[in-house]
């Protein structure tokens, strides 16, 4: 079962990615894939089928139109209790991370956050849930053997979408849940479109800095390189924690997940916490003084050297190529 998150009636892209992963798991288990869509219209439900769902449980109760932890957790827990799925997947978005834990508490089962890989154990049929642990310095495989469903959240852009089939048929079921109660109320939703966030997700080049940039002076060098490339500046948690780069630039498990064409990591040691947010980039260039830095493990091109020397040279060369 996939929880298909929507905002303002529009399904979030992560839902289609989860359907890709869910389709693969359902086929392996020989079971059907159900999507749950709360507070949206039937048109969107059709899209979920074309992206791989066999069945959509649609609940258009007005109390579900806007995200609300209380009504969402009651609704999903009710559906889970009735349908008894063996696996439930949800996006590790602000919405999913907020209410899915309540659902796990309600139905008395385990929940694994931010999975980077989901596979079925051939012997037991259990879901093998891989996630970064200990500040992302190591990966852990988590099992939930004694309870059902096995619940997991996955960050946006981690799983790949499946095949879109415009002809694909499926079943849409309207669920009447009734009796949803809420103790909190959203008075207003304010959009603050951060140009940084947009850029990190859409740009082809990201120049990111970590502890090795040493301060705002290092940050300036990254900005210049990003500017020459027409890209954006990213940051590791270390650089954000030091206060050198604002949080909105943070890439990694507690920041954004990005996959540009080229990711240039400067002075980033490479905790898994950072790697999970950028390792699906097409080309990763690593510039670091320390040849032992774990970030070199994911590099396409590795340069052992001083970023204060390399980055300005690189900026200069790129400006020459691109012309004025």
């Amino acid at each position, binding site marked *: 079962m996939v929880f298909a998150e929507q905002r303002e009636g529009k399904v979030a892209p992560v839902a289609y990615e989860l359907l890709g992963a869910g389709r693969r798991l359902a086929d392996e288990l020989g079971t059907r894939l159900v999507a749950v869509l709360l507070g949206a219209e039937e048109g969107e439900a059709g899209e979920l089928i074309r992206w791989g769902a066999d069945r959509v449980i649609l609940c258009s109760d007005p109390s579900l139109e806007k995200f609300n*932890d209380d009504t969402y957790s009651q609704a999903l827990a009710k559906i889970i209790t009735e349908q008894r799925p063996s696996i439930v997947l949800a996006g590790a978005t*602000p919405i999913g991370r907020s209410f899915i834990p309540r659902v796990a508490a309600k139905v008395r089962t385990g929940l694994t*956050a931010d999975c980077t890989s989901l596979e079925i154990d051939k012997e037991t049929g259990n879901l093998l849930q891989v996630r970064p642990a200990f500040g992302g310095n190591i990966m852990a495989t988590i099992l939930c053997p*004694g309870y059902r469903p096995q619940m997991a959240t996955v960050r946006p852009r981690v799983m790949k979408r499946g095949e879109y089939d415009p002809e694909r048929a499926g079943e849409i079921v309207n669920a009447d849940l009734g009796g949803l109660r*809420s103790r909190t109320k959203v008075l207003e939703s304010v959009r603050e479109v951060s140009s940084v966030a947009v850029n990190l997700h859409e740009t082809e080049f990201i120049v990111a800095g970590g502890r090795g940039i040493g301060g705002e002076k290092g940050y300036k060098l990254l900005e210049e390189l990003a500017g020459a490339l027409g890209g954006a500046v990213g940051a590791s948690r270390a650089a954000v924690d030091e206060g050198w780069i604002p949080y909105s630039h943070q890439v990694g498990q507690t920041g954004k997940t990005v996959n540009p064409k080229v990711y240039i990591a400067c002075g980033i040691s490479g905790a898994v916490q950072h790697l999970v947010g950028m390792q699906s980039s097409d080309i990763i260039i690593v510039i670091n003084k320390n040849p032992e830095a774990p970030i070199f493990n994911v590099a396409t*091109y590795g340069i052992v050297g001083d970023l204060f020397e390399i980055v300005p040279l690189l900026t200069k060369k790129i400006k020459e190529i691109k012309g004025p």
Partner: protein
Amino acid sequence: MDIIVCIKQVPDTAEIRINPETNTLMREGVPSIINPFDLHALEAALQIREQLGGRVTVLTMGPPQAEVSLREAVSMGADEAVLLSDRAFAGSDTWATSYTLARAIKKLGAHLIFCGKQAIDGDTAQVGPETAEFLDMPHISYIRKIEEVRDDYIRVERMMDDGYDVVESSLPVLLTVVRELNQPRMPSLKGKMAAKKAVIKKMGMADIDAREEDLGLRGSPTQVKNIFAPEIRAERRMIGGTAEEQVYTLIKELRESKCL
């Protein structure tokens, strides 16, 4: 206003390394700190106490040495500190941790409960919302601003991906906070003295009316099967030479792969 702040003592994850031979975490000598998000939670609680009066209790679940973190919280201004510690709690996952915390909070009683949005060792962000569910209480996540708080009402800004929501709730309520909310204060001299003298209240399984089968490893639905180091990218190429040569080679490679 009675406020409980849940804090967690965590290893400073920035200092953790993997032993490349054994593939295990090297935890020796890694300093323990209060989870950074929890400091913002404590600061928020202290500010509300200053405004409305009341008491701020810090609560942590952990081994006996977590007392150090509680004393640090007292030095920042918490009135009371409670250590929730018992062998029966060992090996708790987020479900069992939330259940245990909720049992203790029920005993202690509070109008407002603050948590950091997540702990830096697990990064799950699950314990706050799950605890609220076990308390049958609403919660609001990622609070970046408290607009108004009264004895029976709170209005806050919740940070979302594309902006923020203004959310209101009746009390009691559990709130998880983000860094943007405030700047945690430094301990005062008076606070440091108080921390030395503070009597840490201890609670165990017998004090919280918990079902033993729901505690610790036994009560935890999830299990860690194994841990491993991340994979190495297969097509890696190291570029040597002087800085000029390195940049030259890199540019050449990027042009060949049509990136420039």
